[in-house]
């Protein structure tokens, strides 16, 4: 019998000998009281909600950033908070940030919403990222406005990657940027052009694929695909609307010209002991 950690995501990034015992995906603050007596420390993987894509009055919006990823030992507690993904809308402007997820002293912020036709959202860190700048990650890596990072800035690769930057050009053949590669990925950006427009794909995740961007002539096409979550793939864009991010922190795809941007994927908490 041969096994690959890649055939079962639960094997990832946990100390040898521990077993995944609880997974919480219901967004909001949950109460758990069933950790067995005598277990005082647990290892947790905590993922924030993905950011929503953006939509713009003209041109294409940027993709949302991936939710943050934090992991480590913590004391046992009864409170588990799972961040919701940012909700995509058809209102021009930046997309909504994802929510933070928390268990004990392990925190993961949400990805930031796609910003505009220039900037996508940044991947979340230990706290929620702010616009095109990422925040400090749980490893202590500093936030950045433009670089590959653990929590990556807009358009950049990382464990939690950034969403693609949108396209402001409204004529001719245009192709938007994909979300960047990562463990959990940002959404693809959108185009809004009178010519042939192709939205960017959601970023390629380590376990799941990003959604595909939409392609066609005119501003009713060109939405960006959703980013990959840690538990499911990003959703394809539909016409001018962005695709939703995958479960477990995927960023939402950007929308073309007042389409509905993709929502970010919900967060997740996994408890090992």
């Amino acid at each position, binding site marked *: *019998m041969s*096994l690959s950690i890649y*055939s*079962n995501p*639960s*094997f990832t990034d946990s100390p040898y000998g521990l*077993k*995944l*015992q*609880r*997974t*919480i*995906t*219901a*967004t*909001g*603050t*949950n*109460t*758990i009281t*069933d950790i067995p007596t005598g277990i005082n420390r647990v290892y947790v993987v905590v993922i924030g909600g993905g950011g929503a894509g953006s939509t713009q009055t003209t041109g294409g919006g940027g993709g949302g950033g991936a939710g943050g990823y934090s992991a480590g030992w913590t004391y046992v507690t009864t409170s*588990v908070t*799972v961040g*919701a993904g940012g909700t995509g809308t058809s209102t021009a402007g930046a997309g909504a940030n994802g929510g933070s997820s928390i268990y004990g002293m392990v925190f993961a912020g949400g990805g930031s919403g796609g910003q505009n036709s220039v900037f996508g959202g940044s991947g979340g860190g230990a706290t929620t990222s702010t616009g095109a700048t990422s925040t400090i990650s749980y490893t202590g890596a500093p936030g950045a406005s433009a670089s590959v990072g653990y929590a990556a800035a807009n358009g950049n690769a990382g464990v939690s990657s950034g969403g693609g930057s949108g396209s402001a050009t409204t004529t001719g053949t245009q192709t938007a940027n994909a979300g960047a590669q990562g463990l959990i990925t940002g959404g693809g950006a959108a185009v809004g052009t009178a010519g042939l427009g192709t939205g960017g794909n959601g970023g390629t995740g380590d376990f799941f694929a990003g959604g595909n961007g939409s392609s066609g002539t005119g501003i009713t096409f060109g939405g960006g695909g959703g980013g990959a979550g840690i*538990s*499911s793939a990003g959703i394809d864009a539909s016409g001018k609307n962005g695709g939703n991010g995958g*479960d477990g922190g995927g960023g939402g795809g950007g929308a073309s010209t007042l389409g509905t941007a993709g929502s970010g994927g*919900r967060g*997740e908490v996994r408890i090992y002991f």
Partner: protein
Amino acid sequence: MAIKYEYSSDCCNHFYIEIRNPEDQQVMTKCNICGQGDYVLTAQTEEQSPTVSE
């Protein structure tokens, strides 16, 4: 309303719990011990609705 789903793997009898909304997909379907068997649902109970804060 979140639901607490209790599972046992049909290979190693690994006891595993997910707390999720009923419309959400099961996250882990294969046994975490050997990666081979499936998780079989043994019980489900309604949990207190999560408190959502902005």
